[in-house]
């Protein structure tokens, strides 16, 4: 296999507090190949957004990466300072956030923002960059891009703004796009449009995408592989079809059962008792064991690492029997 675009190894992110350091991301490892879409899914507080922020070096202080490695195209970037990361952000890693308004400067015309970004990363004349911005906006589905390039962000609707942000994120042709809840603030019909657009643009360019969302539906629509996070760790990672239809980890099973579907109306939704533990009260052993129907002794004592489970990998002792062969990911 070729060098992955992004390789994260044993990433640990923590927040120092008066009562010790809270570990919010705890030993997360994954690879992302060129052109691949990796969905990172989990409930609030699972650490999915923080994992994305760690990759791109945007963790809010006092939070910081405690240990582990982030490699972009083989090069270690987790130890780059602010200056080094600035050269990478935008050019090699693009970003799309939930609220398009926070990604756009309300005081500048959108055309100027895109032109500025293009010229910051590529040697282009003002005119060339403007033509490229228009082409990009057109590609992102903004009708009359040549006229609308002079508009301000507030003159666009939410869906249109997210298209502009997408164009902005892809204008320097990054190898990797981190999309953090890109469709959460949008209406259903607009959400479908944006997913289709994101899929098309990244597929055409061969951009790898790390798609962070709480919405399993979005993952099923778009991702190739999916990592399910729980309490700062990856509970299960595998091909999207397997994780969605044959989940292995008890948490993933519970999560899938809890999602109401438009198919047959069932009398009850599957229910995971309790709620995700707080950061300062992560249970010993497997963090999920107090809520798990299948928990046994070992789950309470030892923390499971990723082990093969079908075509996926699950951090669950239920799969320990076949874990002896290749525990090294």
């Amino acid at each position, binding site marked *: 296999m070729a060098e992955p675009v992004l390789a994260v190894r044993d990433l640990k992110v923590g927040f120092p507090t008066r009562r010790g350091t809270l570990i919010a991301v705890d030993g997360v490892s994954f690879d992302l190949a060129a052109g691949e879409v990796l969905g990172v899914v989990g409930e609030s507080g699972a650490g999915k957004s923080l994992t994305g922020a760690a990759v791109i070096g945007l963790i809010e202080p006092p939070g910081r990466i405690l240990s582990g490695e982030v490699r972009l195209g083989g090069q270690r970037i987790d130890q780059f300072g602010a200056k080094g990361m600035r050269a990478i952000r935008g050019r090699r890693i693009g970003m799309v956030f939930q609220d398009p308004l926070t990604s756009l400067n309300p005081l500048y015309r959108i055309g100027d923002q895109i032109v500025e970004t293009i010229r910051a990363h590529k040697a282009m004349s003002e005119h060339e960059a403007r033509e490229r911005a228009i082409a990009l906006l057109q590609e992102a589905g903004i009708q009359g891009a040549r006229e609308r390039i002079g508009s301000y962000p507030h003159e666009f609707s939410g869906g249109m703004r997210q298209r502009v942000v997408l164009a902005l994120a892809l204008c320097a042709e990054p190898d990797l796009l981190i999309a953090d809840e890109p469709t959460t603030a949008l209406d259903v*019909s607009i*959400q479908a*449009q944006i997913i289709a657009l994101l899929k098309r643009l990244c597929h055409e360019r061969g951009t790898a995408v790390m798609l962070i969302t709480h919405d399993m539906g979005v993952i099923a629509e778009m991702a190739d592989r999916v990592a399910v996070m729980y309490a700062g760790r990856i509970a299960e990672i595998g091909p999207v079809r397997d994780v969605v239809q044959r989940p292995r980890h008890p948490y993933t099973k519970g999560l899938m059962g809890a*999602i*109401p*579907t438009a198919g047959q*109306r*069932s009398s009850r939704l599957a229910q*995971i008792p309790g*709620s995700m533990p707080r950061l300062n009260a992560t249970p010993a052993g497997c963090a999920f064991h107090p809520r798990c129907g299948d928990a046994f002794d070992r789950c309470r004592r030892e923390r499971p690492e990723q082990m093969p489970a079908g075509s996926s990998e699950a951090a669950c002792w239920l799969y320990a029997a076949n874990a002896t062969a290749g525990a090294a990911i």
Partner: protein
Amino acid sequence: MLAVRGECDGGSRDMSGVPLVEARDLTRVFDVSKPWLNRVIEGEERTLLKAVTGVSFSIGRSETLALVGESGSGKSTVARMVVGLLQPTSGSVAIDNIDMWAPVRERERQKLRRRLQMIFQDPFASLNPRWRVKRIVADPIKAFALAKDDAEIEHRVGELLRLVGLDPSDGDKYPHEFSGGQRQRICIARALSSKPEFIVCDEPTSALDVSVQAQILNLMRDLQDQFRLSYLFISHNLAVVRHMAARIGVMYLGRIVELAPADELFENPRHPYTRMLIDALPDLAMTGKPRKPIQGEIPNPISPPPGCAFHPRCPHAFDPCRATLPALVAHDHRSAACHAVEAGRI
């Protein structure tokens, strides 16, 4: 004007004779004009926003009617009018044949208010952060004088907290000590404390994670069975609505465009907008069916398109759609407002 009368409401009436909740031609107009001086100087006219136009429905006892729609469709405005938080510009809401907005004696309205409650979307904004949970839950009991002394109130609050899956000792805590799902449980306990018959739920689980959402939806269905509650369930999430409701009304730009029993709506949607919403649902079965996301966005409600408000986005639009507003026409026990459906084109 459209008229939703007769058969399409019939489903609920069959069950108990008279529906518990009856909304007739609800309309709400908001004045979003600039201040008077600006209008005079700039020579502008008043700007009116029709948030809801001619919405009619009925809800039977222990029935759930859901209203779905995207933002700006007017579903929350309907909820607020039904529960009495917002006066309709025209139209009426009757609960058990008592008109909520007719000039009645205050006592009678008080009595009516006890019988309906509301659960809001944001459990962080709808609980007073400075009150202990037991005071929050006891508030309606005191307001409607439903208990004779403090001991009875205390007993009742403990009972309610246990009913929604909390511990009676949680009554001594403050709202900030609870997670979002637990807070929504507190909101439900408060809503139940006046022994209502009808609860309006405005996006009750939209702020919650899926696993917590499942807990709350299950709880709401259990409580419905236990107390024969009627729900008006407002949501933008079709899958959630499908799980909760017997009948579903689909709203677009202030109007109900289709009203049908849940199963039939999903198996055989009639209105092109309903079809689009169902088609846009993420496909967890991953059948890989090709999908065609509908183009365009919701128009500005201040200046809606002429004719059918959906026609600029509709793949089936033909001439009448651009000229006249389609009426909500009932067939069997369901209804749709669409020229193309009427003409048998789809």
